[in-house]
């Protein structure tokens, strides 16, 4: 069936370096994508989203890239900080009131 998945389960980066977290999706009908950050014991926290009519969107220190040709989504975090340590999930949704489908998650560990 349709699914959303992640290439890497864990990622360790040095403080100050840039981080790139990747996600593959398989539902070609998906038109909305979100990256969430989840800290231990907390709910998913919205980071950034992108719609399928865009291929790049920037926020504060974060950039999401969407490549619809290969069904790939990435989250770039600039100047990674210890507070960025968390599990990051991508999520996708097809048009309308269809539910969000989450990927498996990547744990980002920032080494001070």
């Amino acid at each position, binding site marked *: 069936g349709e699914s959303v998945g992640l290439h890497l389960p864990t990622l360790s980066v040095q403080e100050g370096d840039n981080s790139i977290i990747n996600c593959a999706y398989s539902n070609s009908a998906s038109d909305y994508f979100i990256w969430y950050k989840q800290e231990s014991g*907390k*709910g*998913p926290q919205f980071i950034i989203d992108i719609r399928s009519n865009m291929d790049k969107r920037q926020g504060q220190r974060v950039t999401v890239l969407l490549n619809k040709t290969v069904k790939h989504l990435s989250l770039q975090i600039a100047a990674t900080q210890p507070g960025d340590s968390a599990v990051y999930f991508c999520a996708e949704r097809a048009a309308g*009131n269809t*539910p969000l489908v*989450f990927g*498996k*998650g990547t744990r980002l560990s920032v080494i001070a």
Partner: protein
Amino acid sequence: EPEVTQTPSHQVTQMGQEVILRCVPISNHLYFYWYRQILGQKVEFLVSFYNNEISEKSEIFDDQFSVERPDGSNFTLKIRSTKLEDSAMYFCASRAGQGDGYTFGSGTRLTVV
């Protein structure tokens, strides 16, 4: 900033007991969701609710589960007879409209013993 509030934060229950997990969505939101996350796994969709009825549910959401919006403020998830495998974090989420983002609560950790 408006929040989705969930209570309790942690609930321990005996197998076979009924539990009710409570959520207060953001006040002007119209779409409501329950998700769950088994420890170390991804967040899984359970049910969506709009206009006082279920709009979609997953295969996880069987006859043991029900949702209700009893008073226009709370949004509850009931599990009639809990099983050990129901142990998980349960997240409530809401959004204002179909084009809007989802806001998640901090979750209820349900432990079935």
